[in-house]
């Protein structure tokens, strides 16, 4: 038994109801059925639900009154009838056949059937409310169709597992009306006319009645197919789980459990080509079905449950169907289209999802179990941008009747879709519009007035960066008058006649904007179109694109990164041309994240960091501290290097000093050096030069050979890995332009929640890279919000304990590489088997340059920290999902994603935020009014993060002397803390400039339980915290104690 099969088996165990539960279910259902059967005859009239009847547009006359008679038959339909109810949605469909005597022959006309159908249900509702077996009764609609309500009955059930279980009472109309009267071409809603007064066919309306007429027959067909066929049932359950995880295809206008069952039973019979046979197992059936969905010609030709010969439909009839519906799948009677609710786009999405699934199963590790069955592919994570449109009370929808042939909500779904499709053209690969119009707590007495209160959801899949974010749309040629008229009508004042560089003249629309705001173009287009065609204001349309940009706003990276890269190029050119140093410089490589577009705050050009000759107009204010960018240099080979490690480092420094000096002489760059680092200030930036020496690498290898356990990290090794990482990530950024912003959001999130000291920046980059390289079951994200959401979900859901994360950046891992990684992983996990607490590394990240996960996550995060990170990620992901779907609700705003609770630490140190090296990077000043304040302190006067330039008094030289390279008080403080309090506490901080530092006590070994040591330890900790304050003198504002360490 392979592991996928095993996992699937476990999954099935989780969702299948056990026998005892089924028994309780059956008992409850039969008691409800008995209660319905015993309802006495009674007269019913429209008074029972006047608003519903009025909203349907049916006159309340005598024709609606009838004598209620108990149903002809009551039987269980749907998933419970074939024993395939999947937890957690436990419900049973009860098909109640309304007796013929209750209806007139012509009731199929003008919604009279629908009105009476409801009145019939009203009687059942009334009598069930007094029934002792019923706990609660509610209303819902059948497949979101407002005119077909169903009764939701919650029976009294004692079992906790079945507490949410309910029964749907669905009326059926078996053989109530003549089928020919309901054929597609007929008009049965007389008010539905064309402009000239001619009546139009009402295929949707007719199908709505036909559906009720054939419900029993079709569910009988399904029941027969599933009878005593275990693997088919299991496959159905699996397909349901698969579809249910994809909220955009498991909806009213696409798939549901019943339709999946129909498809499966179709595939077992002759007309479906007997694709499923008894010898197949569940996963084979699963795959065959997906393949069928992905490749079938439901759309072009239409299918029929009955085999060719028995289907009595002529070609013309079929054509008629093709004209009326997008997707055709005729039922066993050959006169009703089971898929009449499916729209073309919905089906396209379904097909795309199925085929993408099939192709990605093979690319996933372990058969893709997680990707297929466990990962939620909901609206928010799937689409690149989501729109929430509030159409409540919109004049365009409310003006017409609620229901004619189709319902007004479905029609506006279609309208919005076609509007966006036309407006976005090839910018969007896919647009999906879904409006769950039925209110969750619907009462039929209110009629349809509360329908559509929920916002409409629109998902847009972006096609590609270049197409989607282009500035100009070119329309038709002015000579083509008809097209021009259309174009002008659609775009209104936005349309303009333009002459392009290649000489063509054409109608066009232009969306000019800054290069960094290109991702907002789609939003602008949508807002414009909705305002023009739906008269919606900006408040009614919420487009999720830029809501998170506030935390990156301070700098727009794309414009400044150009200058930065230029400066780097200039530096490397100058370095390579240097001639005064004994060895020439053979290569210059960037190491800093800012040079690969992944830094949250890439440095801004500093007015004092220019060469002497360059006269930049100095700004008034500048930061005192300059962030330096690491650059790696390699020298040409020589045999004259010393062999001793210290001597090598000294020689490197000597080289660097020499280089700095000559740069200073030749180009006027400023060189600021200590004995460990050399910084060159030029073109507005500061670069920190490092030399990588190959021999250093070899030395390490030799040492490692003799003593494998003790792996000493050498400077050269670290530099090598960093340069490899840097160049690979840079390549990735070239392939996926959205990668940069997503990484920046992710980094901001990690540091905002004070995880900076535990999760290396490079590790975050790798995790995000994985989202782009192995996006299954999604496509690679094309928007920052979606990418960020997937990052959070990945952090929280990934099975870090049992699987390595293999980030195949260049996509060139061979099976041998993977095997090697797996072996490394097993090795690292083996040691932890005895001691489950110490899994090192808790996060196994394998990259092409580091197959043993030694580079970034070797020592941290450990298991407990990782657990904390994932639970934070989980809650942030939930919040983000909620924000996208429902918007900010009260205090739950977008900022909350980056606001971290401070009362979860043992002690908190607050810093003076105007003494941070970059106060402008602070997101929210920390507020603290709980915990015991232990000590507080004044801010130092000696350090100011900003300095005022100009004024003539200061010369450039003086000002330059005040500039501090790489000076960060917070970092100094943390270093001192580590030195003064080794192994006392864990330090949680925000490397991007937060003003709060969390402390948690490290666990003490001593197991002594001193009874009266409590007070002593309290004063002890207070004293320790006071010393913490002393160490950070001038920076620390206050120290707060929350919890004394446990002893």
């Amino acid at each position: 038994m392979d592991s996928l099969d095993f996992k699937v088996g476990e999954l099935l165990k989780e969702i299948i109801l056990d026998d005892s539960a089924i028994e309780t279910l059956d008992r409850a259902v039969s008691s409800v059925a008995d209660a319905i059967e015993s309802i006495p005859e009674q007269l019913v009239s429209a008074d029972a639900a006047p608003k519903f009847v009025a909203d349907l547009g049916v006159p309340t006359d005598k024709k609606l009154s009838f004598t209620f008679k108990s149903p002809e038959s009551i039987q269980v339909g749907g998933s419970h009838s074939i024993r395939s109810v999947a937890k957690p949605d436990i419900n049973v469909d009860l098909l109640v056949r309304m007796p013929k005597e209750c209806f007139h022959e012509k009731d199929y006309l003008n919604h009279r059937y629908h009105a009476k159908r409801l009145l019939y249900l009203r009687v059942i509702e009334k009598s069930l409310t007094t029934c002792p077996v019923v706990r609660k009764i509610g209303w819902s609609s059948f497949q979101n169709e407002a005119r077909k309500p169903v009764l939701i009955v919650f029976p009294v059930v004692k079992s906790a597992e079945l507490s949410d279980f309910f029964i749907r009472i669905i009326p059926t109309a078996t053989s109530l009306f003549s089928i020919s009267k309901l054929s597609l071409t007929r008009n049965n809603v007389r008010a539905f006319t064309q402009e000239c007064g001619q009546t139009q066919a009402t295929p949707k309306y007719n199908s709505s009645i036909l559906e009720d007429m054939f419900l029993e027959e079709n569910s009988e067909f399904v029941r027969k197919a599933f009878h005593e066929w275990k693997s088919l049932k299991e496959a159905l359950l699996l397909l349901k789980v698969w579809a249910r995880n994809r909220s955009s295809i498991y909806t009213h206008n696409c798939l549901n459990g019943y339709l999946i069952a129909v498809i499966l039973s179709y595939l077992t019979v002759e007309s479906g080509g007997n694709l499923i046979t008894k010898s197949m197992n569940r996963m084979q059936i699963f795959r065959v079905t997906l393949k069928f969905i992905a490749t079938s010609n439901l759309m072009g030709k239409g299918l029929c449950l009955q085999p060719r010969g028995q289907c009595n439909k002529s070609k013309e009839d079929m054509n008629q169907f093709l004209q009326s519906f997008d997707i055709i799948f005729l039922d066993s009677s050959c006169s009703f289209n089971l898929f009449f609710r499916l729209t073309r786009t919905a089906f396209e999405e379904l097909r795309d999802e199925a085929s993408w699934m099939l192709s990605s199963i093979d690319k996933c590790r372990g058969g893709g179990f997680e990707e297929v069955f466990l990962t939620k592919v909901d609206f928010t994570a799937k689409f690149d941008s989501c729109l929430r449109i509030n159409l409540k009370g919109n004049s365009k929808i409310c003006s017409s009747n609620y229901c004619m042939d189709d319902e007004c909500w479905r029609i506006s779904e279609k309208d919005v879709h076609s509007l966006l499709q036309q407006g976005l053209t090839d910018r969007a690969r896919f647009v999906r519009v879904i409006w769950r119009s039925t209110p969750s707590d619907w009462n039929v007495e209110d009629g349809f007035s509360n329908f559509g209160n929920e916002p409409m959801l629109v998902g847009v899949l972006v096609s590609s960066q270049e197409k989607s974010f282009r500035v100009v749309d070119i329309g038709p040629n002015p000579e083509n008058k008809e097209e021009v008229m259309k174009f002008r009508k659609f775009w209104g004042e936005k349309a303009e006649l333009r002459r392009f560089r290649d000489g063509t003249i054409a109608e066009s629309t232009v969306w000019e904007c800054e290069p960094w705001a290109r991702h907002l173009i789609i939003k602008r287009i949508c807002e414009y179109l909705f305002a023009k065609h739906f008269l919606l204001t900006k408040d009614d349309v919420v487009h999720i694109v830029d809501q998170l940009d506030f935390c990156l706003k301070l700098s727009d990276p794309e414009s400044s990164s150009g200058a930065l890269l230029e400066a780097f190029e200039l530096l490397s050119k100058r370095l390579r041309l240097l001639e005064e140093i004994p060895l020439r410089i053979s290569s210059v490589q960037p190491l800093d994240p800012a040079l690969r577009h992944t830094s949250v705050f890439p440095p801004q050009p500093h007015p004092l960091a220019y060469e002497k000759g360059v006269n930049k107009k100095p700004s008034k204010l500048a930061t005192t501290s300059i962030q330096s960018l690491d650059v790696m240099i390699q020298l040409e080979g020589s045999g004259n290097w010393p062999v001793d490690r210290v001597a090598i480092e000294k020689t490197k420094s000597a080289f660097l000093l020499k280089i700095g000096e000559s740069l200073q002489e030749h180009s006027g760059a400023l060189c600021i050096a200590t004995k460990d680092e050399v910084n060159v200030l030029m073109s507005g930036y500061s670069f920190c030069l490092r030399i990588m020496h190959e021999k250093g690498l070899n030395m390490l290898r030799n040492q490692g050979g003799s003593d494998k356990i003790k792996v000493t990290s050498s400077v050269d090794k670290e530099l090598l890995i960093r340069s490899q990482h840097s160049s690979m990530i840079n390549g990735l950024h070239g392939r996926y332009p959205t990668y940069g912003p997503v990484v920046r959001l992710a980094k901001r999130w990690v540091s905002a929640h004070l995880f900076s000291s535990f999760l290396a920046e490079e590790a975050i980059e790798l995790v995000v890279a994985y989202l782009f390289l192995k996006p299954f079951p999604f496509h690679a994200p094309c928007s920052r919000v979606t990418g960020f959401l997937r990052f959070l979900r990945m952090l929280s859901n990934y099975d870090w304990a049992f699987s390595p994360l293999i980030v195949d950046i260049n996509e060139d891992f061979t099976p041998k590489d993977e095997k090697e990684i797996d072996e490394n992983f097993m090795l690292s996990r083996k040691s932890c088997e005895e001691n489950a607490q110490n899994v090192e590394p808790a996060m196994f990240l394998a990259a092409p340059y580091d197959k043993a996960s030694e580079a970034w996550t070797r020592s941290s995060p450990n298991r407990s920290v990782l657990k904390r990170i994932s639970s934070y990620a989980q809650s942030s992901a939930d919040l983000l999902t909620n924000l996208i779907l429902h918007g900010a609700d009260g205090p739950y705003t977008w900022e909350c994603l980056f606001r971290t609770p401070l009362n979860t630490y043992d002690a908190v140190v607050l810093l003076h935020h105007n003494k941070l090296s970059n106060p402008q990077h602070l997101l929210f000043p920390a507020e603290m009014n709980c915990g015991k304040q232990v000590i507080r302190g004044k801010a130092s006067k000696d350090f100011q993060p900003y300095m005022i330039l100009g004024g003539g008094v200061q010369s450039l030289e003086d000002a330059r002397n005040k500039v501090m390279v790489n000076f960060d008080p917070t970092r100094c403080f943390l270093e001192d803390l580590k030195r003064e309090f080794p192994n006392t506490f864990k330090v949680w901080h925000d490397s991007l400039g937060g003003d709060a530092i969390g402390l948690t006590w490290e666990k003490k070994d001593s197991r002594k339980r001193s009874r009266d040591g409590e007070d002593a330890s309290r004063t002890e900790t207070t004293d320790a915290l006071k010393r913490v304050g002393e160490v950070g003198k001038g920076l620390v504002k206050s120290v707060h104690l929350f919890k004394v360490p446990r002893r």
Partner: protein
Amino acid sequence: MGKDKKVGKAAQGTTKSLPKLTKKKLKLEEDPDSGNQTAGGASTEAENNLRILKGKKVWKAAKGTSKLLVKLRKKKLKLEEDPSFDDQTVEGASTEAKNNLRILKEHKKNKAKPMEKKGKLSKRKKGGEDNKSFTSNGGQHLNKDDHVFDLINSGQTSENGSVEVKEQSETVGSSGVEEACIGKRIKTKKLKRVGKSKRSDHVSEKKVQLEKLAEVDSEKVDEISSVDEDCTRGMKKWLINYKESRQGLKILQQRIDEFITAYEAQQEQERREREAIAAEGGWTVVVHHKGRKKTTDSESGITVGSVAQAAVLDNMARKKNKEVALDFYRFKKQEAQRSEVMLLQSKFEQDKKRIQQLRAARKFRPY
């Protein structure tokens, strides 16, 4: 548990013993012993824990008003012990508890006024600590079974620590009954709870803060002394360090030159000594070197016996091929097969274990 003790102590001052309550308490103290025997299975451990706690409390804080906790616990215990109690009595009991608490609260209010300042302070501390211990515990030792009950307890104290007494008694009333029957589910429950608490923390944090502590005694807090004078610590030190380490290129260069000269001199001396030894006796010990021959002389850096590395590797590879195949003997082949089977078997075992763990972590639930 130490925390609870603290609670008792802190509260000790605020309310003097209330005769009525102590009496009741004593009465309650007596009956659990008999009742404990009836308690069954999963709940015993939890009870034991509680009993220890309670015992300590009675012993230590005889006068303390931590009765609040003790009593609630006891009430719960009672409910646990007596399975014959039906729902109604549970309700009754909890309302009774509520009433008691209300009385207690009132008394507290009346009596505690003179001590208010201190009381508030300690209360604040208590609240903060309790809340915190709850969440951070959850974060840290999620998997330790021994902590499970601790956690439940501390979780409850955090509830108790909050000011709303009414709510508290309700939660205890209901959760007490639940807890009695749930032994093994606790773990998962707790996991959930941690997640939830984190979630709500996003927002509730602020509210809680505001509620809990309106005023901070700013006068009593010590202040860090001589911020701008002390050069040995803090900002001043960092600034001085920064300046001192950047003395200019010339000086740095000089230092490095000094080091290199010293280093070279040392090397030179070592070399001389070696030469001297060699010259003295004319003998050197020849040591066999394992591994690849050195291609560069370490001292002069001159390439000596130059052999291309590729060539060596090639040579070695060729040599390997000449070695006798592993399966030359039949028994070797069998052995290899056996070991492979063993390997597969162990891998299978490992997979099984893994799946067991996955199942425990509910990794198969698609919702």
